[in-house]
């Protein structure tokens, strides 16, 4: 009789702990996702400044600039529309396109020493590097948290309470196409300005 009672108490305690663990991971995952949003917004706000700063000096590289502006507007639009069944895939596609356009622009800027010398660009470049890093790290944190959440809800004992916690596997934020992976990382080639 006592044994049964003890077993019951242990089981109930475990169910509560596992349930709360899943809920906490679920919230961490959605919070990490919001972080990506915040950083993406930051990038969208930064780009008009960047474009204005380099516009005058780069008349003959207009296509690169236009690609950036277009990719940015597309990304803003997709972000604003939200919702949709595969919203996440669309957002990440648009943002990846923007990343590509931006890194091409930064390669071009590197070719104009007089442009970099004007100070303003140096600061903007640092801001852009930082923003790209923030997005990358926010994504990294999201992917780590989401993987943890998904693993937890699929692993054996915890999977029994997954239905109760309404847990479903979280989508990972991935780079879509192989071409995207091949784009050289401009941030890494930037020398420190000290």
């Amino acid at each position, binding site marked *: 009789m006592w044994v049964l009672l003890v077993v019951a108490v242990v089981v109930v305690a475990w169910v509560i702990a596992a349930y709360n663990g899943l809920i906490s991971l679920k919230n*961490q995952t959605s919070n990490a996702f919001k972080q990506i949003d915040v950083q993406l917004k930051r990038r969208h706000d930064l780009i008009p400044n960047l474009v204005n700063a380099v516009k005058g000096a780069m008349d003959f590289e207009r296509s690169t600039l236009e690609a950036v502006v277009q990719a940015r507007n597309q990304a803003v639009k997709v972000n604003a529309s939200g919702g949709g069944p595969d919203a996440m895939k669309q957002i990440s596609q648009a943002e990846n396109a923007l990343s590509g356009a931006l890194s091409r622009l930064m390669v071009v800027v590197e070719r104009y020493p007089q442009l970099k010398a004007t100070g303003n660009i140096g*600061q903007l470049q*640092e801001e852009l590097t930082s923003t790209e890093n923030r997005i990358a790290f926010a994504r990294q944190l999201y992917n780590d948290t989401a993987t943890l959440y998904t693993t937890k809800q699929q692993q054996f004992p915890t999977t029994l309470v997954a239905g109760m916690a309404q847990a479903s596997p979280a989508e990972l934020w991935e780079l879509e196409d192989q071409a995207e992976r091949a784009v050289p990382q401009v941030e890494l080639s930037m020398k420190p300005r000290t």
Partner: protein
Amino acid sequence: MTAEVSLNLFQQQEANRRRTTWLVIGFVLFFAWLGFGGDVIIYLSTADDAPERYHHVFPFLGIALTLIAIGVAWYSYKTGPQKVLWATGAREVIDPANDQERQLVNVVEEMAIAAGLPRPKIWVIPDEDPNAFATGHEPRDSHVAVTQGLLALCSRDELQAVIGHELGHVKNLDVRLMTTLAALVGAILLIRDGMGRSMRHGRMPSGGGGRRGKGGNPLIAVLLALWIVSWIIAPLITQLLALAVSRRREYLADAMGAQFTRNPLALASALEKIEHAAAPTAAIRRGSAHLCIADPLGRRVTSREGWLADRLATHPPMSMRIARLKGMGYAQLKKEGGLTA
């Protein structure tokens, strides 16, 4: 990998909370022993005196010292981060004044995102030697300080790696334990100096030993010897504690930093640079040495492994840390190379 790390993290946080509590309790108990021990000695040495002379029956020394210890421990715990920062002469970066500081702020904010922590307060120490430390009680209220020398020496990636290491300390609550310890080490040195002064003024019982001479109770002599030895070794004990607590943590924080940046080689190269610049960091005093990323005292023991180094250094040998990080880096490169091939 992430699952293990996060489980480990939770245990690490718990262990650090527990150890901080024990540290504070141990500190108070130690002073209680000093106080009540002194009372017993005075009681025994006055017990068989003539009735009209002074008899020490009420243990006011023990009560006073215990209360003082509780007060000091509470005050040290509360003001620890401020004290540590103040002692190094650090100034907070609120509005970045130049490109270097702007980069520092950016890098710290990036790493806070990677670690999933709130942004810590950022401080710069006016010292030419490269070094860095973190302090605080909670991730919500934490501080990261770097020297001017580190900003000048490191590339962006290396700076990022160093900050990642420091945020590793913040995330697993190492900062709470290490800051409290630093504050208590400082407090013990201060109290001992104060007590030493009052002993010299002759109000403590140790000065009056001559009156009794050979006829005294041997128990008193033993107690007195123990008591005086305790006073002398108190700072030594706290410093040994500081050593014991910080060595393993450096490896762990290196690993966490590498997990945040996904770039262990950057931390390895930052550590190499810091080691080669190994002039002592003048701004960082002995009491907070165990908080830093590299031993600020530039002691020789840190450069070797071995029995002595294991016991005397606050930090594991640089060469071992660098070797471990490089191992992580090459494993990562191999994995990535395997994916594309």
